[in-house]
């Protein structure tokens, strides 16, 4: 079972190689096959996540949530997708049409690209880059620009304010988000995702880096504009923030990207702090899946428990709490590594 998906990939590879192509073309074809597999995985999970979010929200607020269409309301989302796709696609007359449309196409690109380096199981990543974690940070920083494009292109003051809030929030929370990984990178001495997972053979990094994990959870939640940090789309004051003017299929793109980002965040957290695919008895990919969904559930729990925080509190939390804490964590980790090396060298342990 451990190598179930790896074996499938091997079979497909043999099939493609059977056409008599050369090495490079087979490699390229395999990258495309894996890319499509990841895309399907993400889209299927987004469907599950939207249903899960609505049921979890209902549970936390002592109501039922969708439970009429299909068993336990599982088919509700299929109906919603049909509704969204069959709606009229309206482009506001005053919108900057090029930017408005481009944003809806581009919003999903960085999200999907992030999944390319995540190891879903033993040897189950599309590309095992040397840069791994750094690549993820670089790619996800592009999202800010696209959200701005959506907010600005709509030519609506609510959208614009939503876009500006999104930029301010994402640019500032990116700093503790990046710093929270530095402790782990110092411990492993590598940015490669597979090396980071292998380094957690004995003990998960959540044990060695508990403060970094908490900073990661908070800053990550702010990065994906969810939970108590959903100021860019605060319903009371901004209608729906940067995607106010989007309808039908384009709105669906933003909605799906939000959940795909949530899943990506959980996947990164599971890989970096929770030991990735490592675990006893069960196959690796199942462990990864369980850890990922545990983090997703935690994020949903936070979202439906805490009230939205104010803009100045948001900035206060970032610059005066998270940033010093994450910097202190790096210093302590550095000293800890040196002390550990010294103890090992002296042979005291």
């Amino acid at each position, binding site marked *: 079972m451990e190598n179930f998906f790896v074996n499938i990939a091997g079979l497909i590879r043999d099939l493609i190689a059977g056409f008599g192509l050369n090495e490079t073309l087979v490699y390229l074809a395999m990258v495309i096959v894996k890319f499509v597999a990841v895309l399907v995985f993400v889209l299927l999970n987004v469907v599950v996540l939207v249903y899960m979010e609505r049921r979890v929200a209902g549970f936390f607020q002592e109501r039922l949530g969708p439970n009429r269409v299909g068993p336990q309301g599982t088919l509700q989302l299929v109906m919603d997708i049909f509704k969204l796709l069959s709606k009229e696609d309206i482009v506001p007359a005053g919108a900057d049409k090029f*930017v408005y449309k481009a944003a809806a196409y581009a919003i999903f690109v960085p999200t999907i690209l992030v999944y390319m380096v995540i190891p879903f199981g033993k040897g189950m990543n599309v590309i095992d880059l040397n*840069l791994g974690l750094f690549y993820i940070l*670089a790619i996800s*920083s*592009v999202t800010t620009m696209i959200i701005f494009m959506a907010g*600005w292109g709509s030519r609506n003051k609510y959208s614009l304010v939503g876009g500006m809030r999104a930029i301010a929030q994402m*640019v500032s929370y990116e700093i503790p988000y990046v710093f929270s990984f530095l402790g782990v990178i110092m411990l492993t*001495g*590598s940015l490669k995702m597979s090396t980071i997972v292998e380094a957690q053979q004995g003990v998960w990094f959540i044990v060695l880096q508990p403060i970094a994990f908490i900073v990661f959870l908070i800053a990550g939640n702010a990065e994906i504009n969810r939970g108590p940090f959903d100021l860019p789309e605060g319903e009371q004051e901004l209608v729906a923030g940067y995607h106010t003017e989007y309808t039908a299929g384009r709105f669906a793109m933003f909605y799906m990207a939000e959940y795909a980002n949530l899943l990506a965040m959980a996947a990164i957290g599971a890989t970096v702090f929770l030991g990735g695919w490592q675990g006893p008895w069960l196959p690796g990919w199942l462990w990864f899946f369980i850890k990922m969904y545990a983090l997703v559930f935690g994020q949903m729990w936070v979202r439906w428990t805490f009230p939205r925080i104010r803009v100045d509190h948001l900035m206060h939390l970032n610059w005066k709490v998270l940033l010093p804490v994450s910097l202190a964590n790096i210093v302590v980790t550095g000293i800890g590594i040196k002390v550990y090396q010294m103890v090992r060298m002296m042979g005291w342990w």
Partner: protein
Amino acid sequence: MSQAIVFGVLAAIVLGFGLAMVLSKNLVHSAIYMAVTFIGVAGIYLNLSAGFLAAMQILVYVGAISVLMVFGVMLTRRGDIAASNIFNRYKLTGGLMALALFVILGRLIFTSSWNLSSFAVPEDTVSLIADLMMTDFVIPFETAALLLLVALVGAIMVAKGVKNTR
């Protein structure tokens, strides 16, 4: 061979979007074209096996500088945004300047002798860069960090304003 094709495509993207950035009348469109140009340049770095540099290019230029620029434009500019790029009126001057720079750079490229290294590209470039940064180039690295700190403090002072004590 495939490297040359990839370079051609990337160069076309960089030049095309660079031109679009200069010629666009709308400053925000210009900023978005500029972001695409930066992504194209990152692609060229990747093509040269400089993955770290490519990721840095995207993180710093697309993720931070373009966004900062757009933010600045949005907060400071009033009036008609559709004609906000005031500098693209100077087509002739700009063209001449670009041509002059092109001629100078072209001459420099063709007259200098290029030393080709016989080393293969190392598999793991990040740790080599890290080693160099912390050993041979630690002083320039720290100086750059200090410069950034000074700029940061200066920006805070400018934003805060000086209290008139008199």
